[in-house]
């Protein structure tokens, strides 16, 4: 610290070219005629907080480097065991994971198409329900949604295996472990996250309109429908992106409910395998083989999807609600 101080003191006096001060410092107080605040002892971050931030960022960096470093060589060498194929037959040397990518996409899209409208309906109802009779139901639903954010996905999966699968089997035939069963449970999983994000976005706008609007005779529903929703495009999109990210990231529900078949799912009642379930199944098997490499490509695809979702969320202005937590 000492050496720096003289350096700045002398330089400020003479109007000589200012040597390249560390970028972050210059940005903070470029021409501070008075003593630069960052110079004082005890001003900057202590080694403890700096180390902690370094640890946190290095954790993320290491994770990305590991996945990319292991996945890239496999991707760039289109040999026999190339993972971007449509056939997963380890014994015949085919290690294509495209069916799994499609499986993940299909499942997440199903969960989004079922979950997003339901979440929007729920959020609108929670914000605009005025009937006295529905007051207890509104409180119950609000409490249930907050409770749902804590329900572990393995408990969702467990209950579904014994409650939903037999129903689906009798109703739709087939093995009961299929896209529909896993999709329904994923919808329940991502519903609370989306409702909370929507509520965080729509509630303040509606409250601002309420006194003025109701004075004019509009009901809260009209206000929401006519004035708030048309301009809440970004918030609605943010909820959808967050829900999609969380649906793609979950492992347990597809592993327990989707049947894990390695083909491209044809219909609602066909079983499929998602990327995450594939990683859970195959990681244990062999190290160094083509199957093992396909895991890292799957991991890379998942990370890219998730990073894309985070960037999209950042542009849409909603922080990815860590309250709702990520898939597990």
């Amino acid at each position, binding site marked *: 610290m000492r050496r720096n101080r003289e350096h700045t*003191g002398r330089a*400020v006096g003479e109007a000589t070219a200012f040597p390249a001060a560390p970028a972050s410092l210059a940005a903070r107080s470029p021409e501070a*005629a*008075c*003593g630069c605040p960052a110079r*004082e002892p*005890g001003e900057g971050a202590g080694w403890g907080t700096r180390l902690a931030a370094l640890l946190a960022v290095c954790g993320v960096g290491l994770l990305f480097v590991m996945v990319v470093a292991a996945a890239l060589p496999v991707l760039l060498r289109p040999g026999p065991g190339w993972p971007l194929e449509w056939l997963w037959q380890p014994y015949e040397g085919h290690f294509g994971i495209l069916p799994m990518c499609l499986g993940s996409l299909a499942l997440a899209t199903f969960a989004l198409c079922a979950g997003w409208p339901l979440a929007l309906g729920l959020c609108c109802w929670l914000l605009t329900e005025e009937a006295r009779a529905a007051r207890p139901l509104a409180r119950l639903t609000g409490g249930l949604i907050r409770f749902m954010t804590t329900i572990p996905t393995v408990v969702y999966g467990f209950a579904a295996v014994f409650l939903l699968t037999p129903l689906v089997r009798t109703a739709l035939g087939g093995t009961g472990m299929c896209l529909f069963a896993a999709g329904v449970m994923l919808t329940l999983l991502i519903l609370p996250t989306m409702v909370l994000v929507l509520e965080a976005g729509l509630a303040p706008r509606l409250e601002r309109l309420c006194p003025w609007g109701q004075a004019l005779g509009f009901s809260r529903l009209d206000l929401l429908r006519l004035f708030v929703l048309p301009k809440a495009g970004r918030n609605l999109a943010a909820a959808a992106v967050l829900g999609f990210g969380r649906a793609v990231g979950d492992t347990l529900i597809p592993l327990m409910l989707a049947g894990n078949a390695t083909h491209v799912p044809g219909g609602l009642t066909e079983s499929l395998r998602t990327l995450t379930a594939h990683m859970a199944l195959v990681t244990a098997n062999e190290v160094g083989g083509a199957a093992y490499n396909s895991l890292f490509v799957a991991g890379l695809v998942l990370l890219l999807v998730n990073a894309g979702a985070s960037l999209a969320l950042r542009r849409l202005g909603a922080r990815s609600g860590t309250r709702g937590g990520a898939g597990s």
Partner: protein
Amino acid sequence: MNIAARVCGLHVSFGARHVLREVDFCAPAVGVTVLAGRSGSGKTTLLRALNRLNETLPQCRTTGRVELDLGQGLESVYAGPDARPRPLNEIRRLVGMVFQTPDVLPVSVARNIALPLKVVAGVPAAETEERVRRALMDVGLWDEVADRLDLPAERLSGGQQQRLCLARALALDPAVLLLDEPTASLDVRAAAGIEELLLRLAARYPLIVVSHSPEQAVRLAARLVVLSRGRVRHVLEKGSVDAAALAALLGEDE
């Protein structure tokens, strides 16, 4: 009559907004210097320039010389061509400050004083007990809170909290005391108590007080600095003006 604080050519601006222009004044070592002026005349910014608290606000630029007597004669507070100021936290320790709304720390009454003593002044634990008691005695708060030292400080009344802030500043035995409209948020009776306390302290510490009420200014001031729109209009000595005249002075410059 030696001087506690001298400001020459002080210029403070926040981004594009120039708050203080070419401010020059001296504060006597004994007695209360009152900075008077209408709201927006920059008196609070001037007060904060003395202990460099403006730097906590974004995009602050301060030029000019500010010298305070921190025990070894007048020394500059800002780094300048030939000036070598003390570390910032040491300057702020020696320049005690009390804000308009009492800002007690979210801890117990005793710890409100003990924590700064331990962390800032590095006073050993054995001594803090005694210094806390002495500080509370100075501000006449000891008999009221002697039995409630472990109560959260927020439970005290407005006047008591302001006295606690004053006691906290005094405990660090400052060289100068800055008070930013200390009685603005208090009822009349508590305000009178604080004013009487300030006059008593004026004998021991140089006080610089910002006040918006002419009556209070005249009652307290040994020297009166009248500010308007960021410039010093008049510097008046004690007794050279009464409350009505001061009110007129404040009114005329707008």
